[in-house]
């Protein structure tokens, strides 16, 4: 389990995340939603240890990352997979080299086994045969899938996904969402997804956290989110037209 206890992060006098507490459980997709600039990405970078916290604690199975030694931190990071907003693939490496890179760094298995693992991961994300392409030669959706393949190659326990649907068409977005959902169940991972795509939240979210101006404003599940009377959350959620229709139908039912 990952537990956030009163997590705050400031850059100088500018507070980006303020007093966020939450728990993320195994086998579930935990969605962190909020408008652009609400502090989702900073919170995620704090969770993976890229930004030191200004105050509070982040616990991985009860151990605070702030109190871990450099060795323990490295060991935890080997169990973390992350998909970045722009995929962050290494441009000078092919798809295969990108995916095999963590294996080369940390695994002692023979090359043939490593290649088998790479091919398995590529097949799992539907990109078999694309081994020799460079990131510049593949589409945005394919880059995301390569990023996912690289994130799962070491069998992670924790998967962090930052804006998986940004810049993708609706069909590819659905494919990526389904892939994240399947992999979370398959590997029994703790998955944390940052998004502001409500379709994605309604399709895959098990637990939802709403951030507003760096503060946790609401927490619940996808059924509760549609019925909440939190005005700021409603404004955010029902900005999507089909959900707006749903909300007005719900209100009409209540009136009747």
């Amino acid at each position, binding site marked *: 389990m990952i537990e956030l206890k009163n997590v705050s992060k400031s850059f100088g006098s500018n507070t980006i995340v303020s007093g966020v507490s939450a728990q993320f459980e195994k086998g579930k997709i935990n969605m962190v939603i909020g408008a652009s600039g609400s502090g989702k990405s900073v919170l995620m*970078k704090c969770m*993976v240890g*890229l930004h030191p916290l200004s105050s509070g604690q982040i616990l991985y199975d009860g151990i605070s990352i702030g109190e871990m030694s450099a060795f323990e*931190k*490295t*060991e*935890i*990071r*080997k169990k*973390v997979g*992350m998909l*970045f*907003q*722009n995929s*962050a*693939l*290494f*441009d000078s490496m092919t798809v295969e080299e990108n995916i095999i*890179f*963590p294996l*080369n*760094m*940390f695994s002692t298995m023979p090359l043939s086994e490593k290649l088998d693992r790479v091919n398995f991961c590529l097949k799992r994300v539907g990109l078999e045969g694309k081994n020799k392409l460079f990131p510049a030669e593949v589409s945005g959706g394919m880059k995301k899938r390569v990023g996912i393949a690289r994130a799962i190659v070491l069998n992670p326990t924790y998967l962090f996904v930052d804006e998986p649907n940004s810049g993708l068409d609706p069909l590819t977005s659905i494919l990526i969402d389904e892939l994240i959902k399947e992999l979370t169940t398959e590997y029994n991972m703790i998955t944390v997804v940052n998004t502001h795509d409500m379709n994605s939240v309604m399709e895959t979210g098990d637990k939802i956290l709403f951030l507003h101006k760096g503060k946790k404003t609401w927490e619940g599940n996808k059924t509760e989110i549609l019925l909440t009377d939190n005005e700021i959350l409603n404004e955010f959620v029902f900005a999507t037209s089909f959900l707006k229709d749903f909300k007005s139908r719900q209100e009409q039912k209540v009136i009747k």
Partner: protein
Amino acid sequence: MHFFSHFGKYLILVKLAFKRPENIAIYRKELFRQMVSMGIGSIVIVFIISFFMGAVTTVQTAFQLVSALIPKTIIGAIVSDSTILELAPTITSLVLAGKIGSSIASEIGTMRVTEQIDALEIMGINAAGYLIAPKIISALIMIPMLVIFAMGFSIMGGLLVSDLGGILSSQLFLEGARSSFTLFNVVFSLTKAFTFGFVITSVSAYQGFYTSGGSLEVGVSSTKAVVYSCIIILFSDYLLAQMIL
């Protein structure tokens, strides 16, 4: 205060770069890749620069030494000494600061702004070590080698021009060059090359590693890397000359 804060960050980064590597084989592979890129990739520009540097020095020295009392062999001595002591290490390093320095700063800077460095760190890899250490070690090996080549090409340029231009015969040129040659000059020159190699790669890597923003900032970092490397090269050139000579 600003200078000391940067200098402190620079020292911390260099220390971080030389932490124990996660997988020595990967670092070795990266080192060889860098050596090929820096060494083979720079040999043509080093040849062009140093050949003409030697040729021009010969013509200008001959132009200034018109007295019949001065033996012509002195031209060979001046050209080879100035080449070995100053021109080959300093001019070559200034040129390499432009070529290698800007390339390192823009490569690492681009990796920073596209979150590739974050991706390395999340994998549990020491990004500073993986990206910077092979570059510094490669420069410490390849830049002195390029300087040795530059010495050869420069003297070759001088020799060719003195002979073809009718300034003095190649035999006299070589006689002068041999008469003033001392091994100490070569050692001093290689000490400079070693220092300049470290300056170029570490300063450029620092500029790239702490880039923030977008493509515009990558360009700024790249320019800063070249400018600061050149200034530090010239300053350390003076410092080394003052200390060693």
